[in-house]
């Protein structure tokens, strides 16, 4: 990609000719729209953009993008995309996954992708349910969830993708939600710009099998009280009148408090770039149960060597040390003799 290139595409250019087949009202539509509207602004080429997905409702995403795309198998998209990204550093590789795809069957590939830090942008559509298979609970479902496979309620405590990612050493971790296009776009842009693996959790409503899973947080009525917008360099405050703030307590955890002159100075100032992930983790664990005020935005964004870059460096070092590849020499490298 040359730097002179200026994209003059529109949403239509990024939309494939396939009918979109999600249920009417599904949150996936607004994520698709957010991305199709954002991509023309990123000054990247369609033919250098690839969407790789696993299996699930979310994973149908690539079919709707007029880019290169691969709809693969359940849970393996991060691994497949890694092979693509390291061999083709010229591409913009996006991974689209669901909470089951990324965190249940695919959990291991996800954590290894995150620590490996190849140049991937992973979008995790979290609807806290298995949509495609018609409504079983997922790893992010709240405990006690009654579903087809748990008629008496589920028993496991949910996985929080943000804390899991931080535990695995992720370099870019963010959260956004399907009800706010401009927030999604801002976060997607940042994720795309991050050189390395970025993970974006997207709260996504499945109106058929888990309707309203996030409405306590992101509905018009709840947002002011329950949605915490993280902004780098700014104190973490929220509420209709910014009356609440996030402060440290003396157990190392973060807590929410009502602000007044006496404690205003204690409000934590958000810093995405801290080398130590402890603060970001504390932020991810702000909620002790569901439906509590929830941070949105970039939790962590730090620079670490990108995996593919390092491979290129090693290849260069190899050539440096041993000279350009010489097959004929290689075949003789274990000692050879001549017979006349």
């Amino acid at each position: 990609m040359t730097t002179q290139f200026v994209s003059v595409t529109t949403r239509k250019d990024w939309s494939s000719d396939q009918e979109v087949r999600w249920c009417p009202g599904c949150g996936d539509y607004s994520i698709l729209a957010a991305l199709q509207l954002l991509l023309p602004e990123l000054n990247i080429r369609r033919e250098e953009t690839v969407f790789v997905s696993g299996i699930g409702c979310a994973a149908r995403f690539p079919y709707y993008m007029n880019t290169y795309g691969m709809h693969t198998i359940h849970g393996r998209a991060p691994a497949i995309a890694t092979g693509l990204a390291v061999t083709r550093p010229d591409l913009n590789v996006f991974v689209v996954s669901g909470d089951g795809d990324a965190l249940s069957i695919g959990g291991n590939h996800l954590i290894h992708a995150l620590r490996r830090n190849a140049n991937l942008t992973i979008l995790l559509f979290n609807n806290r349910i298995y949509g495609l298979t018609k409504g079983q609970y997922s790893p992010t479902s709240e405990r006690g969830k009654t579903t087809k496979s748990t008629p008496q309620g589920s028993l496991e405590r949910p996985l929080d993708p943000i804390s899991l990612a931080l535990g695995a050493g992720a370099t870019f971790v963010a959260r956004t939600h399907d009800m706010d296009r401009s927030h999604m776009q801002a976060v997607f842009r940042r994720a795309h710009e991050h050189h390395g693996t970025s993970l974006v959790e997207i709260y996504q409503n499945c109106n058929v099998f888990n309707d309203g899973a996030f409405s306590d947080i992101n509905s018009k009525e709840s947002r002011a009280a329950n949605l915490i917008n993280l902004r780098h360099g700014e104190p973490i405050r929220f509420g209709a009148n910014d009356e609440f703030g996030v402060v440290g307590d003396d157990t190392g955890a973060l807590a929410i408090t009502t602000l007044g002159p006496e404690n205003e100075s204690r409000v934590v100032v958000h810093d995405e770039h801290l080398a130590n992930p402890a603060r970001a983790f504390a932020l991810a664990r702000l909620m002790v149960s569901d439906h509590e005020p929830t941070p949105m935005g970039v939790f962590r964004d730090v620079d670490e060597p990108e995996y593919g870059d390092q491979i290129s460096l090693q290849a260069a070092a190899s050539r440096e040390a041993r000279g350009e590849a010489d097959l004929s020499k290689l075949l003789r490298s274990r000692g050879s003799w001549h017979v006349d």
Partner: protein
Amino acid sequence: MVVHEQSALENVVLRFAGDSGDGMQLTGERFTSTSALFGNDLATLPDFPAEIRAPAGTLGGVSSFQIQIASYDITTAGDSPHVLVAMNPAGLRANVHLLLPGAMIIVNGDSFDERSIAKAGYRTNPLEDGSLDSFNVTSVPMTTLTTEACRDAGVKPRDAERSKNFFALGLILWTFSRSLEATLEWIERHFANRPTVAEANRRALHAGYHFGETSEMYAPRFDVAPAPYPSGDYTNITGSAALSWGFIAAAHRSGLPLFLGSYPITPASDILHELSGRKEFGVITFQAEDEIAAVGAAIGAAYGGSIGLTTTSSPGLDLKSEAIGLAVSLELPLIIVDVQRAGPSTGMPTKVEQADLSHALYGRHGEAPLPVLAALTPSDCFSAAIEAVRIAVTYRTPVVLLSDAALANATEPWRIPELDELPVIDAHFANGPNARTDDGAPAFHPFVRDASTLARPWAPPGVAGLEHRVGGLEKADELGHVSYDGANHERMTELRAAKVAGVASSYPALVVDDPQGDATVLVVGWGGTYGSLAAGVALARQRGAHVAHLQLRYLNPLPRDLGAILATYERVLVPELNLGQLARLLRAEYLIDVASLHKMRGAPFTSTEIADAIDAAIREKP
């Protein structure tokens, strides 16, 4: 066979055995090197314990290395050693049953103390209890002689003792009339920055050599002449190295980058090790978190226009099934190497078996056919790798290439090909529209097929206008988008099957080894048993049998000329290191009542086993 003194021999089989810590593999390799340089044909068979180290001195801890050297073309490391070098009682006990009466045994006498004898499971000292009377036994106090030789060399006696394998090597080199030169040079290079170790090894080597020369108690000496080789440059190569280099060569001849996604597993890891040091060749190796990620990454790389390769051994192949099925459905090139080991489950991880054939053929849900090849010898691994890439790239299909634990570790001399002897592989990337939309605009349809190969276009990202989506759902013929249409699914299933079946049209004609042309019995083997079957057939012929031999490299699709060949023999014998998987395939395909000979002992067939089975088949002929 009884060994005669000073005799000029056509071939000798030699086996080194000792504790895992005794350096037997190294000794064997050095002897191999010297013999190869000398010009013998040779074949080796390393045999070491499963990965966990057994307590020193026990049978479980024995490590052996067998080599056959010959003045003619040989194919195996031989059945029964003529010479056994045993560094300890366990090494003796584990191998003595392999020897024919009259064989020569050289032992490290120092190691036959009471404790070691008991540890090996002997009740009495075999050197003294008469149990070895039918052999020609020489006991040499190797430990003592080695430590003595190293006195004042700057190493502690305990460390000096470690050089005793070089003593043994020196002794054997003398016995086989070989010079020390190559070994001395190797020591020089290898221990460059450990000069005292180098010195100790040098001294031990000389001591052994001189012991042979001077000791009165020691008589027989062998002399195996060089084999007549076609002219060229030669190297000694293991199956693992040959495979690795074959893939590098395929990358070179196709102009494509090579991407290996792998997860370590014995005995496949050596390919990963070998390729990980070859980044200057545009090779990327990726040690994945598991086998699924490994094959997944290879698929991603293939989608991006690389040669996607994944290597594993048997249990790892199980885990790759689903992703291989995806590659079948995507119709992307992909090579899966399975270095087979003894199963089921974890089985016997360092031992050979050929029991993954059916799994390679059918181990995926749905109708998901793919080409399956097998390498025949260590050096054949090189061309089998290139052939696998050719098929994968030409037909846009995953290909399974079967090797095995014996091939992987065995060595043979190999004439290094000139680069321009190697086939050229053309990726034929799609470079523009190949269709029109309903309203006549140029379009790219990712599942339009080449008329002759039925291959679809390979269109890695990067080309404007060829943007397209592929996936594991059934695709509309030509168009490639998702289709649930039943008739389309049937057509696509048949097309995929026809494409794979069509690979057979690109095979060379089969060549049956039937020197007299009048055999009534045909031995059909596949893959890595080539050497042992050829040797067995040769033995049977020596015994007077008229027997033909055909070794299959292509297991799916089967060669088109195979049916006619099978039909010309009265009896077909199919020896396999499994319970009869190729036999089943041949029966189903050709409705011929082939006789299956199986062996499941984690070891190759011996010539005698094969020759005896041939004799029986001739007697039983319908």
